[in-house]
């Protein structure tokens, strides 16, 4: 790890003469890594790092969670999702998939969408629902599940699709946002989409950007690149994660995604509706769409209002830090999150809570 110290030194040298710079990272794993390794302590003066909407479970909308909860409590249904999704509560309440599970609903933790297919095949009398969340990183896996289900004619599995895509959200978030001067791009998403999907950051938004891996050294390296660009007045996109990320991305995954899903408008918790930032199933897969298989009209309406005092929307836009929020650590803790940024370990507030306050 002496490499990391050398990198921190290089970062400090690169930052000499740099105008004050706020870098936003938009990947939950970056948020977690930055907090876990105390990387902010290594940043030179003038460089600060804030967390954007990169935690996929944090930005999953209340309406989607309400549907998942309703499905989980429907007799005969087994609902699967990722572990951290199970904990996410409906706004202002205590209800979560974990709670439904405690109360007897058949909610299961999965590490891959394919788990849903396996369960469906092993338990043909159950209606198995995959509650699909995540960005471009997990969406191709859901697409693979759907294609297999269709090819193999597995009829008792379906997908409640709440996938989101990163570039559309970033455009909406950063356009006209004067607080962010550079972007640390998510390496996992870029491994699928390719670096080119982030060209719009320098070209349309005028911000320097670097695609970064997730180790502390990789993040420091990408920050050094960003710092050099800022110091030299350059606006470009660098690929600092070449081991995993190519210009054009994972073509097979993208082709699969395109075959199975198409963009749609999506609501982001804390940010509201963003045009073209969600994914929905193409018509040939409609039979596997849980929103069509089940009559979801009975799902209770959820109020879209954030709890009073919650600053998550501002935090996700980079306008405030977690500790600026009056609820932080008091009315809002990882155990009883009030807002989306506190719900998963990858959320900006949860990371600040868990690792902050040295």
């Amino acid at each position, binding site marked *: 790890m002496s490499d990391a110290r050398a990198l921190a030194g290089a970062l400090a040298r690169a930052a000499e003469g740099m105008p004050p710079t706020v870098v936003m990272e938009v990947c939950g794993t970056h948020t977690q890594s930055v907090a876990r390794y105390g990387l902010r*302590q290594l940043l030179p003066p003038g460089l600060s790092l804030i967390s954007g909407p990169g935690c996929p479970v944090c930005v999953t909308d209340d309406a989607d969670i309400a549907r998942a909860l309703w499905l989980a409590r429907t007799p005969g249904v087994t609902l699967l999702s990722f572990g951290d999704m199970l904990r996410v509560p409906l706004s202002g309440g205590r209800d979560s998939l974990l*709670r439904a599970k405690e109360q007897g609903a058949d909610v299961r933790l999965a590490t891959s969408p394919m788990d849903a297919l396996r369960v469906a095949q092993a338990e043909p009398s159950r209606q198995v629902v995959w509650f699909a969340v995540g960005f471009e990183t997990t969406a191709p896996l859901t697409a693979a599940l759907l294609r297999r289900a269709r090819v193999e004619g597995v009829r008792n599995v379906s997908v409640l699709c709440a996938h989101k895509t990163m570039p559309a959200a970033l455009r909406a978030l950063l356009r006209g946002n004067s607080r962010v001067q550079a972007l640390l791009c998510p390496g996992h998403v870029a491994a699928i989409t390719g670096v080119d999907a982030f060209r719009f950051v320098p070209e349309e938004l005028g911000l320097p950007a670097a695609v970064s891996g997730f180790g502390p050294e990789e993040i420091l390296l990408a920050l050094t690149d960003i710092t050099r660009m800022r110091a030299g007045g350059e606006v470009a996109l660098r690929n600092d994660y070449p081991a995993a990320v190519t210009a054009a991305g994972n073509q097979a995954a993208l082709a699969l995604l395109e075959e199975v899903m198409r963009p749609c408008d999506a609501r982001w918790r804390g940010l509201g509706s963003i045009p073209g930032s969600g994914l929905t199933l193409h018509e040939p897969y409609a039979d596997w769409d849980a929103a069509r298989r089940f009559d979801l009209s009975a799902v209770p309406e959820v109020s879209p209002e954030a709890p009073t005092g919650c600053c998550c929307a501002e935090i996700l836009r980079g306008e405030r830090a977690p500790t600026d929020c009056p609820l932080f650590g008091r009315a809002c803790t990882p155990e009883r999150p009030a807002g989306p940024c506190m719900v998963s370990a990858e959320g900006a507030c949860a990371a600040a809570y868990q690792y902050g306050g040295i």
Partner: protein
Amino acid sequence: MEQEITLAHGAGGEAYRELVRDVFLPAYGSRELRELGDSALCQLDETARLAFTTDGFVVRPLCFPGGDIGSLCVSGTVNDLAVAGAVPRFLSVSMIVEAGFSTDELRRVAESIARTAESANVRVVTGDTKVVERGKADGLYVVTSGVGSLDGDWALPGQAPMVGDALIVSGPIASHGMAVMAARENLCFQPPIESDARPLASLARAAYETGVPVHAMRDPTRGGVGATLCEWAAPGVDLLLREADLPIRLDVRAACALLGMEPLFAANEGVFLVAVPQARADELLAALRAHPDGREAAIIGRAVAGEGRVLAETELGTQRRILMPRGELLPRIC
């Protein structure tokens, strides 16, 4: 305190502490219970004392690489006695069995209990069996209680680290938590991650017999090393971990990284954490390493004057705060 009990109340973190503080202690908090030690130290008369402890086991699956509910229920109770400075002597074993459970499997669990008890040099002297309706007990729950004598030729360990102590862990951490999680969620690591579940009475004895003053000793089960350190940190004392020095098996480390789990918070069933004066740390470490159950013991940090925080020095030389884990540990997305 919340209106309803949730899984978080059983996870060994903040919610669990709240439950004990708000419900159990006000109801029946005896002097001994209020100590909240791994074992209660009970005074029989002016000279005679014994150590007493109990533990419930609801592990799923019942059998996992490196152990089963049988080896676990003996180790867990033996270890609670051992880290209190007692010599584990007698165990009770209560079984709550679901109707329909396989007799062969029950026999295998019983044999595992017998083997582990023998290796720990304790005797199962009483027991109870209840059978509940199908669907009510996940197959099998086991509750063990244990009695230990306090007649060892050593000083009893203290309750908390002191400024100037070294913190030592007796073996690689997080193995049990990750082994059970992998087995429960069908994560097929090859070779499978093995639990560290084992009785530690003999290793604890080796530590006590060095004569090095033990300021604190715990077996960090639920909540892991992180939760134990958070319980230990008291006003005036900061506990400083060096992350690079934490012994973690490579397969366990990889599984933690893959699942987004923090090894500090994963359960252990075969290691203890001990605080001894820095000047005597090497002596204790040598004694642990000379024992077959302590070969990978390591000094992982120290106690310094502070404000009751637990801090980890990362491999980068930065620091981060370790806080009491909350709720159940669940793997993260991708």
